[in-house]
């Protein structure tokens, strides 16, 4: 074990806060630049399979939230103690 001070940048609350701001900024930026590009929709048939502006942002957000909530719901039924299968 080295005596020199270890690298613990990610543990500092100030840095964590910075990362949070960075995350928000990147998200906003990604949506903000979209109008500058001419993205055409994949499917014209139905609105819910790409309505245009910020579609992917919304899809990512909604589907992940849904997946997390679904897994939380299933956890009630499926989560067991680690020794469940032990004799």
């Amino acid at each position, binding site marked *: *074990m080295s005596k020199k001070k*270890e*690298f*613990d940048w*990610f*543990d500092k609350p100030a840095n964590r806060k910075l990362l*949070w701001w960075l*995350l*928000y900024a*990147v*998200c906003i930026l*990604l*949506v903000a*630049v*979209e109008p500058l*590009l*001419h*993205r055409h929709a*994949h*499917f014209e*048939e*139905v609105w*819910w*399979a790409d309505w245009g502006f*910020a*579609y*992917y*942002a*919304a*899809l*990512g*957000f909604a*589907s*992940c*939230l*849904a*997946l*997390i*909530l*679904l*897994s*939380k719901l*299933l*956890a009630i*039924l*499926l*989560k*067991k*103690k*680690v020794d*469940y*299968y032990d004799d």
Partner: protein
Amino acid sequence: MMTNMPPFLLFFIAALITPLLTGKAKNIFICLIPALGFYLISQLDHGVSYQFHFYGYDLTLLRVDKLSKIFGYIFTLNAFAAFLYAFYLKDSRQHVSALFYIGAALGVVFCGDLVTLYFFWEVMAVASTFLILSRQTKKASGAGFRYVLIHLLGGLILLAGIVLYIQDTGSVTFDILASSNSSLTLATILILSGMLINAAAPPLHGWLPDSYPEATVTGGVILSAYTTKTSVYTLIRGFPGCEVLIIVGCVMSLYGIIYALLENDMRRILAYSIINQVGFMVCGVGIGTAMALNGAAAHAFCHIIYKALLWMSAGSVLYMTGKSKCTELGGLYKTMPLTMIFGTIGALAISSVPFTSGFTSKPLIMLAAENQHLIIPWLILEIASAGVFLHAGIKFPYFVFFAKDKGLRPGEPENKTMLWAMGFLAFLCIFLGVYPQPLYAILPFEMEFGTMYKATKVISQFQLLMFSALVFFLCLKLLKRTDTIALDTDWFYRKGARLFYLTMDKGLNGLNRLCDALFVQGLAGWVMRFFSNAPQRLALAAMAPFWLLTGQTGDKFQAKKQRLYSALETATTPVGICAAVAALMVFGLILFTLLLRK
């Protein structure tokens, strides 16, 4: 020609030589074999050779085309990285079983008929089991046992399908078996089911997350690549365009995510993400256009690389800390920065972040779905793509390397080859992401390749991923790890089978005990006791009321009973009485017959 040799032969021969070598020579030898295999495969001419006549069937040990070659390349490439990673390992048992396992996988990929395919299929199942058993824990031996049972079951289903198929068609050639749902027969349905068991398609996927995380550190790396991807190869070859595979693939892609979110063990998270990723490939096979099949092959290629990388980085953590639960890990970035960086590159690649290999392979499948106007499958795969980032892209590195510092200070693995192997694969992840042309050049089907790097595509992908990341960190409280396991379909044969056994035990054995008490001990015993001294009892039953009526009581009555009993028992009754009884009997018989005739 010497170079035109079936690649499996090289690995099988190497497996036999390996135990004879010692020390570093053994490890160098094992690393050279896949490198030689890679070269060998690159030199193979397209076409069929090594054909044998066997019990009336033409077997083909070597069939080379672009499809078999691309899988051959990645199998040997990954084997090289895995053996480099396992350079420290001296255990011949693991090396021999790995060589047989990889050799058999190459056997499947390069064989041209169903009989040979079945043979190698079973060799794979048996050889891979030893990679699990070698962990030498009670859990591993249980998991290994269940693993081999399920694979033997899958093998039998496959065999039944093959036998029926040969009966139906008279051909053993392994080519397109069915190209749409309507052309499926019982035989091809059985073959498809056998293959899907190896692809870990629900509901018969329980073996994968049950067994892979119990394998040894290096065993997990090797296992993660071959069984499921061999199955993907056989699906591309045998069932391109079978629509049912679209549904199976979509289910797999979501199933893996939900379970990976529930999991606490990092290697089980990675095991479930295999199911999720193979789901994309299976879906591609189901779509069945040249682009979709190329996408499935390309994704298998890239997936093997980043999945092995992820298993390596998880393996290094397990190797150094002896722990694999998220609840016990965290803060490892301080002492394992290189493992963290390599693991994160793998995590980014699996999430198909632009400029990694996932971004140049997976969109081929998405694009194929889009071109075929398969809106719902397309949407499910997009949702699954977002979910990948959630469970494998962020969850794995976050909880293992960051999150809460658990005070572990393991340091990087002292075997530098582990880091080299990870570095090599991490390089490939980025290389194929930035410059996918070499990969596109070896894809099996003819098509035009546009670039994935259009500004709109890149921005869309980043939007999808960054908002997934946002949800992850906003929901961090919900995602807090608990020291639990999540029940999966293996419950049915782990607990369910026990329940079945218990029901059978209590039910059938209970019935057995009841019958024993009622009939064997009860009724039969009574009959036996009754008939063993029936004459005495009957005589007494007839005489006792008579004596009582004639007023004989007390000692005299008892003495009379005793006398009659012993006389009958010893057959010493007075002649007169015998004659009287016989006369009565005859009289009775006559009366009985007369009565009956009336």
